[in-house]
């Protein structure tokens, strides 16, 4: 193998010539920027990168990057992306989906892609609403959410994307916020680095149909008190003074937010984040402001063999192209009548 020096691409090189058609102020813009910058930082090759999406505002994403892309059909991007990886595991595949696309119509495919551990990155743009179809409630919309299809308020219990992913066996689950660019870029880099299905939920503000849906932990001033930025091996501290922390309530498996120095709480009580701890990840992903801060960053990362590698390892040693059909037609369950 000879390595040729590839020209360093900038974030701009990952932009396309297509006019971006999201509403002004939509959180999708910030995510696009973060992805483009991450791709540039990672130095990926555009021709080896494929963005596969379903249908929705979020799913228009592939048009706006200069790599290969496939804007498929509603909810089915995971299936198609699985096929791409099976055909060519060398391709760097990103699945772009929305909360409706990925968890309603495509929930089943999402489940199976995650449990199979196909080596790709999934970015789920969670705006808790159907943006493209003009504001109906989605499977992540909260109870009581009023929308054209739920004029009296939704009576469905929402699904928590991270909990879903953990529940179906995802080995990498992370969370970030559209406008938290450096954080989001860090999470995306980690997702890219991880071998296997990397599930990233991004809280995305839909200014038109669900503006401020995440204000409880994104609003200036309160954000720092309501966000827990997880780092592997580091204590779970948050707050402006970094004097607030997460611990297990003594004698239980319930998380609680505590203040250092109050009621005898010391650093030794504060949990230390271990990305491989699946049980803890399930507790962290369920934290809800205002009682507990929202957990951001890499919540769970515990690599396992990937689907396409295992599938390839099972392949017979002779490539199909070299197969001797004539020999095959003379053995086993096929009989030949000598002519």
């Amino acid at each position: 193998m000879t390595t040729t020096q590839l020209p360093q691409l900038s974030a701009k090189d990952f932009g396309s010539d297509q006019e971006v058609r999201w509403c002004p102020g939509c959180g999708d813009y910030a995510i696009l920027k973060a992805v483009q910058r991450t791709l540039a930082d990672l130095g990926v090759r555009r021709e080896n990168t494929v963005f596969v999406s379903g249908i929705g505002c979020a799913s228009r994403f592939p048009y706006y990057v200069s790599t290969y892309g496939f804007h498929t059909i509603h909810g089915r991007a995971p299936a198609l992306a699985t096929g791409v990886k099976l055909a060519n595991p060398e391709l760097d595949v990103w699945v772009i989906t929305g909360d409706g696309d990925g968890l309603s119509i495509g929930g089943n495919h999402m489940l199976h892609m995650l449990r199979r551990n196909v080596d790709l990155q999934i970015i789920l743009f969670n705006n808790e609403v159907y943006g493209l179809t003009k504001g109906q409630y989605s499977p992540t919309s909260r109870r009581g959410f009023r929308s054209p299809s739920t004029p009296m308020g939704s009576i469905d219990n929402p699904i928590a994307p991270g909990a879903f992913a953990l529940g179906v066996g995802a080995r990498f689950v992370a969370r970030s916020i559209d406008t938290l660019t450096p954080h989001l870029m860090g999470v995306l880099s980690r997702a890219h680095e991880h071998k296997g299905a990397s599930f990233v939920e991004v809280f995305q503000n839909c200014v038109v149909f669900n503006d401020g849906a995440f204000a409880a932990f994104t609003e200036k001033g309160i954000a720092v008190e309501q966000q827990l930025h997880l780092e592997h091996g580091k204590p779970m501290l948050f707050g402006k003074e970094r004097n607030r922390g997460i611990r297990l309530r003594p004698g239980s498996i319930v998380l609680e937010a505590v203040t250092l120095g109050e009621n005898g709480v010391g650093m030794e009580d504060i949990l230390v984040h271990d990305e491989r701890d699946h049980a803890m990840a399930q507790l962290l992903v369920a934290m809800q402001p205002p009682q507990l801060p929202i957990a951001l960053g890499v919540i769970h990362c515990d690599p396992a063999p990937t689907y396409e590698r295992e599938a390839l390892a099972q392949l017979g040693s002779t490539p199909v192209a070299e197969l001797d059909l004539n020999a095959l037609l003379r053995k086993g369950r096929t009989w030949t009548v000598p002519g």
Partner: protein
Amino acid sequence: MSSSASVATKKRKASTPTGPVVTTVPEHTVEIVSDSGEGAQKCGQIFGAVSARMGNGAWTVELIPAEIQPPARSPAGASGNRIRIGTKPVTNWGDAANLVVAFNEQVLAARHRLDALHEDAIILVENMWATHDDEDIRREWVEVMEELSTTSYRIVEVPMEEQCLTITDNPRRGKNMFVLGLLSWIYERDVETVRDLIRLQFRKKAAVVAETNIALLDLGYQWAQEHLDFRINVPIEKPSTPMIVMNGNQTLAMGAIAAGMELCAMYPITPATSVSHYLGEIFEEFGGIVHQAEDEIAAAGVAIGSSYAGKVAFTVTSGPGLALKTEFIGLAVMVEVPLVVLDVQRGGPSTGLPTKVEQSDLLAALYAQPGDAPKVVLAPATIEECFHMVVTARRIAEAIRGVVIVLTDANLATGVQPFPRPNLDARWQAAPIDLSPVTEGVKPYDWDPELGLSRRFIPGQPGGMHTLTGLSHDELSKVAYDPESHERGCAMRSRKLAVLQQSLKPPEVYGDPEGDLLVVGWGSTKGAIEEAVDKARAEGLRVSTVQLRFLSPLEPGLKEIFARFRKVGTVEINYSDRLGDPYITVENRRMGQLAFLLRAHTLVDVDCWTRVPGQPLRPKGILEGIKTMLPGRPS
């Protein structure tokens, strides 16, 4: 129980010094029927394979019980095989069985009631039920024997259980081999070949299993020799070329291999699943992937994704699965990613007749997608054609950057027929994908304005980066909603079919090129239709037939061919209204699917005779259909 053997012996005292009477016939149809789980199917498969291997023409059809877990000794549970063997090649399952081996009188009665037995059929039936401990069973036996007493069948009672008990403690698992022995003697099969096939069948089990089965085979053979007074000789004309014997699903799998398919994405569904099983066996050794997806939608998506990324992929399913793939097939048409879909049709609608034959997915294959989604639809007419059609499908899919649906059916899927062994041709396989950089300025849809054809770029190819989209798009694959772009995209995708159509030859007419009635068929009915046409012509009727392989685009020259007949009518295994039924008029009559299509395409007043019996059509039935369609008679 020992008395039963003597009953049979006394009744049919056979070992006369002169030996059995040997009847020589050009063809014979055998049925082996049992409760499901008693192995009649295995017995029938081996008998069919041996016959084919010896050089007889053969066609075997599985007789599948109507219920999944039928109670023992119930007519609904009749399971087994029909094997029609002949001196010449056999093209269909025929009309009625000439010889039947029944493991109990109830499954025998089932076949009798279905009119499956020839009026002079020879019947070999297990007679343990006549003297069974259970009074009800003895009564049931007597009832059936009374029912059959009005027929001219020749019934031979055989003490199968009692005989098998001399070798095995579990005769239920061994009778089928004993019966195979009977049949081997009656039909003068080469016993060494039969033994070989038994060994192969049980190759994965302990050696003693094969040996026990062979002992049972030998026992049956010997019993027949000592007790039967007749043998049947179907002369063998050795074929001039090496032949291969497979069922249609195996053939599809082999075709997929021959076509260089590297990935099969599927979700289990009868009667399509076994294609992937055969393929899986081959892929154990030779690189290739069978991907069992979470549903048929995903299977289509995986196949499209693989094809998009440069692997030759297909998906295989049956009717309900085809329905689920609808939206993805539309996407493949729209983005022009090559895709082969194999649909092994079963009875519908809905879950319908899961194990049984029907030809009712034609219009769904053609028109299920919303919007205009032109695609190629092919229908192999024989098991041999299943092989070559997959190769053809792959080549067309790639040549036109489009979707090809191959429609086979449950009859072809499980039928076994010998055919000339194909020799692999390198051109059948896809050329290795070309990942060389894309020349600047070449567009993702570089449509030839006349042909609609274009070259696609594959991820990994430098300079070819673009986003495929199911939205209406222009040559650059940019979303384009303007009228010109949409019209143009539709025209380009449709044009490819016209180009393909012009490269096809008109279909061949079987029989005279002109006459009173032209029967048009498609798919697996070919052999039965041609046999019926032969019978009709023997009766002096001016009937010919043509079998269509291309349903989309339709083969050229149909209008001209049709014009030479006073009337044209299709024979199909799908539903159509019958004139004469309440409320049915010429105006509201719903036609067979091919008839519907031909009427639309040719403006000829095409009639149809269709049935949905859940089994292959019989030549005799088709002959009646021909007579109802002949002009000048009420149809």
